[in-house]
């Protein structure tokens, strides 16, 4: 039986990918950001998960304004890094796990989550930056990756409660897969940031840290935070934090904190990172 062994939350700022790709992670600006991921890199190297279910949002890369899936799961064999306007990142292709991905898709649909199924798509910084943060610059990514893309761009985006429930359904789906696989679920995006308008640059460290607190232990408070609170308190792009709730929901009733990191700024954004275990 497959099982979800851990959950990771992390921001996925594109500038972090630039820092990795241009070997600038030791620069004074980036060093304090990357230092907070060193623990996780060592931990991942020991854990060697088989599959990562990576929850992220596509930033107008694979999906344009034409087709807007609320929840989409990548069932393909292989996904290439997207060209986001400056050429694709020079990182390894991402290899999927079609058997598990299709199993999860089927299980979720029977569980009343009507997923969009994607066989072929490119994956943008939302997916590849977290891989770089956790694994550095290997010749090949050390785990299979199932992309799970969430619409957090065109409103209404899914509610926090719906995201949490999807996480619960993902746990049921993974646990009904017959093969013994160590599966991690990563929720990415956030934390505070606003990339538009006169209010750009908004950061709310107190709110971000309360949100991280609320994902540790048995609290369910975060699932009921309305969209407007994310937007007012953490900026228009802070809404990405609903994706962390899919990860949290998949870890079950209680979590234990293994590692935590917070830093301001990276580009326009507050960096937040959690490593959690069920139980």
């Amino acid at each position, binding site marked *: 039986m497959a099982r979800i062994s851990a959950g990771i939350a992390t921001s996925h700022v594109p500038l972090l990918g630039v820092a990795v790709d241009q070997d600038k992670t030791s620069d004074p600006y980036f060093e304090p950001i990357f230092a907070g991921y060193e623990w996780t890199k060592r931990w991942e190297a020991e854990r060697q998960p088989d599959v990562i279910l990576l929850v992220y949002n596509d930033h*107008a890369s694979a999906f344009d304004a034409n087709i807007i899936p609320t929840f989409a799961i990548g069932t393909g064999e292989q996904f290439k890094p997207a060209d986001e306007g400056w050429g694709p990142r020079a990182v390894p292709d991402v290899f999927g796990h079609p058997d598990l991905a299709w199993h999860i898709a089927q299980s979720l649909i029977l569980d009343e989550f009507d997923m969009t199924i994607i066989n072929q798509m490119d994956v943008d910084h939302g997916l590849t930056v977290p891989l770089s943060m956790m694994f550095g610059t290997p010749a090949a990514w050390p785990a299979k990756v199932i992309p799970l893309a969430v619409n957090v761009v*065109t409103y209404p985006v899914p509610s926090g409660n719906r995201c949490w429930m999807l996480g619960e359904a993902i746990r049921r789906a993974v646990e009904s897969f017959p093969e013994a696989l160590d599966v991690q679920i990563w929720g990415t995006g956030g934390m505070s940031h606003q990339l538009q308008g006169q209010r750009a640059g*908004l950061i709310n460290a107190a709110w971000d840290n309360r949100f991280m607190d609320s994902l540790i232990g048995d609290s369910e408070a975060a699932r009921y935070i309305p969209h407007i609170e994310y937007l007012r*308190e953490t900026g228009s792009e802070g809404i990405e934090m609903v994706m962390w709730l899919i990860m949290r929901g998949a870890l079950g009733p209680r979590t234990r904190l293994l590692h935590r990191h917070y830093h*301001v700024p990276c580009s326009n954004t507050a960096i937040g990172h959690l490593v959690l275990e069920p139980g």
Partner: protein
Amino acid sequence: MSEKADIHDYLAELEDIPGTRIYTAKRARQGYHLNQFAMSLMKAENRELWKADEAAYLDRWPMSDEQKLAVRARDYNRLLDLGGNIYFLAKVFSTDGLSFVQAVSTMTGMSVEAYQAMMNAGGRSPDGIRSLKDAH
């Protein structure tokens, strides 16, 4: 706590944040061709055509004259007003060789240097800019 939100109340609240345009269906409809134009710049061959003749490239898209003018002017606040979304518009400023910080700072009325200094000092506080109708 998880009962269905009233759609009218929900949408009205989204308009109550100072200096912010939430990308609602109304904006997505208004900006559809503008955003699809921006999206086209993900292809290297389209970026070459765009750089060679911006006006001719824009004329291939059924966009309003206002949208075309705002693109030519790189007036990102105006583009948000006209239905643009920042993740789509990012293809335009990335093609110009601008970073997110450089492009985003142009919308704030601050110089890039002043904006970066604000970010390095912890960012913009939400105090006083959470709501239009109820300043807090």
